[in-house]
C-alpha cells in the first residue's frame, strides 16, 4: 500500500479476532469452543476449491450474479455537476437483497461442518427469508428468531419463511425486536452448538462472524470494482452504502480498502434526527461498548445499558454495528454520516421517479446521502451506490408515511 491521504490500515482481523481495538469474542465460555472450531474449519474450507466452485455456481445460476452495475443517467442528471452515479444492483439478487450471498455461503459451510440445523435472527425478515431459502435449497432444518413486534409489522415475510419450510420462533423478551432476536439466537446456540450452525445476518457478533460475513459479501465489491474499471476505465471517487449492522457496506467496501483514493462512505439511519435520541446511528451517535459478542460502537445509556434503536427501515433498526466499521471509522479510512427517515423517504421517491427503481428503505439511505456528498465532489466524479435491496417489502410502510392507506 502506498501512502496517500488516507490513514494506513491493517486488513483484519488479527488472530484474536480484532480490527484494531474492535471486535473480539465476548461470549460465554460455552460458545468459545464452537467459535474456535468454526474459525479453524472456515479457514480451511475457504481455501478448498470444490467449496469455492460450489458457491460460485450457486451465486451465478441461483442468485443471478454478477449483478449489474447500472449507470443511473437520469438520477445523475438530477444531481448535476456532471456526476456519474452507478448503482450496484443487489436488489436484483434472488430474494431481493444482498443477504442471500451470505446465507448461501454459510449454509454450504454448515453442511461441511456436519451441522444439519440452522438458526438465524431477523428484524424485517429479509435475512430470515434469505436463510430459509438457502436451507430449503440445501436441505437443512431452519429456525428463525424474530421479535414479536417485528412479526406483527412484517407478516408477509413471516409467511414467506414458513412457506419456505422454516420455523419462525417469536421472541417476547426485551424490546421484542432485532436485538432481542439476536440474543435469543445466541442463547439457542449455547444449548445446541453441537448440532447447530448460527447464520448471523450481518458483520456483527463474535469473531469469526464479522470476517465470515464480510468475506461472503465481498463478492459485491469485487464485481463492482471490475465493472467500473471496465465501464469507465478507472476507479470511482466514492463508494456509498447504508450501514445498520453493515454487511452490504463491508461487502462493497472491502475490495476497495487498499484503493486509498476511493472515498468510502457509510450512511446510518438518523431516524427522527440524531438530536432526538430516536435513531440507529451507532457510529455517528453512539459510544464504544461490548454488545452481542464484540467491542464496537453501540447505542447505550450513561449506565452502559443498550438502548433501543429507531429507524423507519427495519433492516437498519439495530443499536450496534460491525467492529470492522468501527475500525474504519476510527482510522478515518471510511467516513460515516446519517440521514433521517424523512430524507430516506424522499430518496425512495427520487429513485422511483427518476429511474423506475423502488429501493428498499435501507438502500434509500445511501441514495439520500448523494446530494450531501455532491458538494465535496469535483465536477464529473464517479460514484458507486450499493443498492442493497428492493423496496417491495416496504411499500406498506412507505405508503403509511406518505399518508396513503392501501
Amino acid at each position, binding site marked *: 500500500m502506498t501512502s496517500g491521504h488516507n490513514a494506513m490500515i491493517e486488513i483484519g482481523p488479527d488472530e*484474536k479476532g480484532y480490527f484494531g481495538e474492535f471486535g*473480539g*469474542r*465476548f*461470549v*460465554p*465460555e*460455552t*460458545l*468459545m*469452543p*464452537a467459535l474456535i472450531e468454526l474459525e479453524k474449519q472456515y479457514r480451511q474450507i475457504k481455501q478448498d476449491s470444490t467449496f469455492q466452485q460450489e458457491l460460485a455456481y450457486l451465486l451465478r445460476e441461483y442468485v443471478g450474479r454478477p449483478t449489474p452495475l447500472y449507470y443511473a443517467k437520469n438520477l445523475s442528471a438530477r444531481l448535476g455537476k456532471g456526476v456519474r452515479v452507478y448503482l450496484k444492483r443487489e436488489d436484483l439478487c434472488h430474494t431481493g437483497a444482498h443477504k442471500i450471498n451470505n446465507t448461501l455461503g454459510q449454509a454450504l459451510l454448515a453442511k461441511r461442518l456436519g451441522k444439519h440445523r440452522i438458526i438465524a435472527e431477523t428484524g424485517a425478515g429479509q435475512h430470515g427469508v434469505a436463510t430459509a431459502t438457502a436451507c430449503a435449497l440445501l436441505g437443512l432444518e431452519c429456525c428463525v428468531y424474530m421479535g414479536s413486534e417485528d412479526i406483527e409489522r412484517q407478516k408477509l415475510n413471516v409467511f414467506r419463511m414458513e412457506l419456505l419450510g422454516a420455523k419462525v420462533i417469536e421472541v417476547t*423478551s*426485551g424490546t421484542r425486536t432485532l*436485538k*432481542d432476536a439476536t*440474543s435469543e439466537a*445466541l*442463547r439457542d446456540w*449455547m*444449548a*445446541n*452448538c*453441537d448440532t447447530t450452525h448460527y447464520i448471523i445476518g450481518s458483520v456483527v457478533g463474535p469473531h469469526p462472524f464479522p470476517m465470515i460475513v464480510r468475506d461472503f459479501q465481498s463478492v459485491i465489491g469485487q464485481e463492482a470494482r471490475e465493472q467500473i474499471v471496465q465501464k469507465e476505465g478507472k476507479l470511482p471517487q466514492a463508494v456509498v452504502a447504508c450501514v445498520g449492522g453493515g454487511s452490504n457496506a463491508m461487502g462493497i467496501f472491502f475490495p476497495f480498502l487498499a484503493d486509498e483514493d476511493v472515498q468510502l462512505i457509510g450512511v446510518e439511519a438518523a431516524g427522527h434526527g440524531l438530536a432526538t435520541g430516536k435513531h440507529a446511528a451507532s457510529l455517528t451517535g453512539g*459510544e464504544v*461498548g*461490548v*454488545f*452481542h*459478542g464484540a467491542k464496537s460502537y*453501540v447505542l*447505550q445509556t*450513561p*449506565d*452502559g*445499558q*443498550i*438502548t433501543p434503536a429507531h429507524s423507519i427501515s427495519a433492516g437498519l433498526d439495530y443499536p450496534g454495528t460491525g467492529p470492522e466499521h468501527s475500525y474504519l471509522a476510527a482510522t478515518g479510512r471510511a467516513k460515516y454520516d446519517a440521514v433521517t427517515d424523512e430524507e430516506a423517504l424522499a430518496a425512495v421517491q427520487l429513485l422511483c421517479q427518476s429511474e423506475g427503481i423502488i429501493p428498499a428503505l435501507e438502500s434509500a439511505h445511501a441514495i439520500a446521502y448523494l446530494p450531501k456528498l455532491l458538494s465535496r465532489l469535483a465536477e464529473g466524479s464517479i460514484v458507486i451506490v450499493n443498492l442493497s435491496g428492493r423496496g417491495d417489502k416496504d411499500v406498506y410502510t412507505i405508503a403509511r408515511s406518505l399518508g396513503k392507506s392501501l
Partner: protein
Amino acid sequence: MSTTNRIDAVFAKLRTKNEAALVPYLTGGFPSPEWTLPLLKSLAENGADIIELGVPFSDPIADGPTIQAACKTALENGTTLERILDIVAEFRRASDTPIVLFGALNPFLHYGFEKFAARSATVGADAVLIPDVPVEEADGIQPVLRSHGLHFIELVAPTTPFERKKLIAERASGFLYYISVKGVTGARANTRFALEEPLAELRSLTTLPVVVGFGIATPAQAQEVARLADGVVVGSALIEKIAAARDVVSACGEISGWLNELSTAIKTARLKA
C-alpha cells in the same frame, strides 16, 4: 494478594468440615433496589456461604427467561451499578459473607473498569464474574481486578475441551465455576447433572474449589451436586420465589425456610455419601 480474600477464608473453613458451600445468586435491584439489602441480609443469615450479586444488563445473553425478566424489572425500577455498589457497602457493615459481583462486561466498562475495580474493593466485594469475558479476553480485566485484591472467577463449560480446561485452570483464582448444562441459566427441577467426569478432570488440573451452577433448583439436586462439588449455585429458583412475594418482608420469610432446607441438604450431602 496482601490480605486474605473472604472467599479463600470461607473455602478453607468449609474444607476442614468437609462441606460444600451454598452460593445463592440474587439479581441486584430486583424487583427494586430497596429490596436488595434486606434480601442480602436474609441470605447471609440463612445459610449462604457466598453470595453472587447480579448487576443487571439490558441484554443478558447467558440468562434464561427468569433472570432476563429480573434484569428488566430491576433496570425499570432504577437500578444502576453505582446503587448496587452502595448496597454492597451497607451490607458489608452488617456481614462478612463474601460477595461475587456477577454481570455483563459493558456496564463495568462504561463505568470505567479501573474505577469499578477500585470501588468494588472499597465497598467490600470479593470477586467479579463476567460471563461474557472468556479467557481470551481476560488480559485487560483480570490483572486490574487482582491489583485490587479481587478474584476474577473463570468459568468452565460442558463444551470446554481438556486442553482449554487446563489453560483456564492455570489462570483461575478464588474458585472455578463449572456450568452444569449446555445453555442458559434457569431452574431445571427434573434434570440430573452429569458431573462425575468433568469434575474429576478439573480436580486433576487444580486444587481450587469448584463451584457448580446453572439449572439447580431443588434441595435434592443441590445435595447430589454437593457430593462432588465444593459449592452449589442456586439462582433462577430463588428469583422465582422472590418474584412471587408481595413485599420484601414476606420475600425474606419465604426464602429463609427454603434456604435452610438447601443448606441442610448441602451440609449433609457428604455424610450420606
